[in-house]
């Protein structure tokens, strides 16, 4: 998944899309995932990191990450929507 290049991510979890003017707040986990995607990491890399950092099972991480990815896609924060 490719996050739009011009998305501004603040350390406080504030996310700003300068193309649409939309802004959002994410929690620290969401912020770390967005940063990873922005740095070009793959979904598999992110799953691996989350599994090592949090005491939970693979299934929960896959489900939550999938939900989060769908959400950021719906919020037009991904390149897919930019091209649509």
């Amino acid at each position, binding site marked *: 998944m490719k996050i739009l290049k*011009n998305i*501004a991510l603040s350390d406080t979890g504030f996310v*700003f899309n*300068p*193309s*649409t*003017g939309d802004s959002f707040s994410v929690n620290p986990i969401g912020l770390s995932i967005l940063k990873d995607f922005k740095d070009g990491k793959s979904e598999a890399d992110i799953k691996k990191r989350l599994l090592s950092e949090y005491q939970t099972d693979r299934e929960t991480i896959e489900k939550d990450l999938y939900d989060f990815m769908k959400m950021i896609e719906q919020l037009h924060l991904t390149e897919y929507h*930019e091209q*649509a």
Partner: protein
Amino acid sequence: MNKRKLTIAVTGLNNIDSPGPGIPVIRALKDSTKFDVRIIGLSYDALEPGIYMHDLVDKTYQIPLPSAGQQSLLTRLTYIHNTEKIDVIIPNFDAELYNFIKLQDTLKEMGIHSFLPTLNQFEERQKWSLPEFGSKYGIEVPKSKMIHSIAEVHTLAYEFGYPLVVKGKFYDASVAYSPDQAMGYFNKINSKWGLPIIIQQYTQGTEVNLTGIGDGKGNLIGAVPMRKTYITDKGKAWAGVALEDPKLMDIAKQLVKGNKWRGGFELEMIRTTKNEYYLIEINPRFPAWVYLAVGSGQNHPEALVQMALGENVAPFESYASGKMFVRYSYDQIVDLKEFETISTMGEL
């Protein structure tokens, strides 16, 4: 650096819920690094809030309504000029622009400079000419037509479908979802602004606007796009944010290059989910949110004054996206004597 002293007359002091651009333009001029300005407010109504903003407006004069004609306006401006020695005049209302454009050469001979669109530029972007304007300059425009009678509303369902947009010739626009609503808006807008009424196809998408300034030679001197983030029940922006929108900037450049726009302007566009842009209106003056451009790094009113005085201005190269404006209301306490003076003497 010594700032050049100038006396600048500005209209549009109605800083109300549907604000005129006068006060934001004055704030921009007060922020100028080049000019030390004395502001002469020109008002139409004794309750325009700018009249009483003495930190921004040094002196205000009432001027005749546009319907009184050019000669009345000229007589009044001559009187004001004899006292105030106006260097530059900035009209900020669509409805008054025709008179100011027609008078600009006479005013210049008197020493009052302005920087206005030509009459042709002003006329060809009128709401009822927008489809021709769009095709001439290669900009998508929603289908629209003028109607002159309420009986014509019945024909709209077939031609446009519902919803559709009912617009006044100068101001006001409402989305009608049925013929009954369309007739209601027709009557309401007609009673306020007169005929014709413009019917426009409704375009689904996000409204994005751009405030810009052209040098009259085909160059876009400055431009800042904005999305409204809080909208009043009159459809006006109460808050907005400066956008990064290269496609909209390209449209503005293309337009200014094509028609050599002279002066400030506002583009009102709809951006669809497919990233297509439709021009719904072009205003021939700065919008009321023009101070966002100043806050984002481009002082358009200052550039306009420079060009009015015959100076060459280099195009702004950047602005800060993400800058926001948030309006507020404020109760000014006004002495009755002041209201009495502007009401009876026509100046304050």
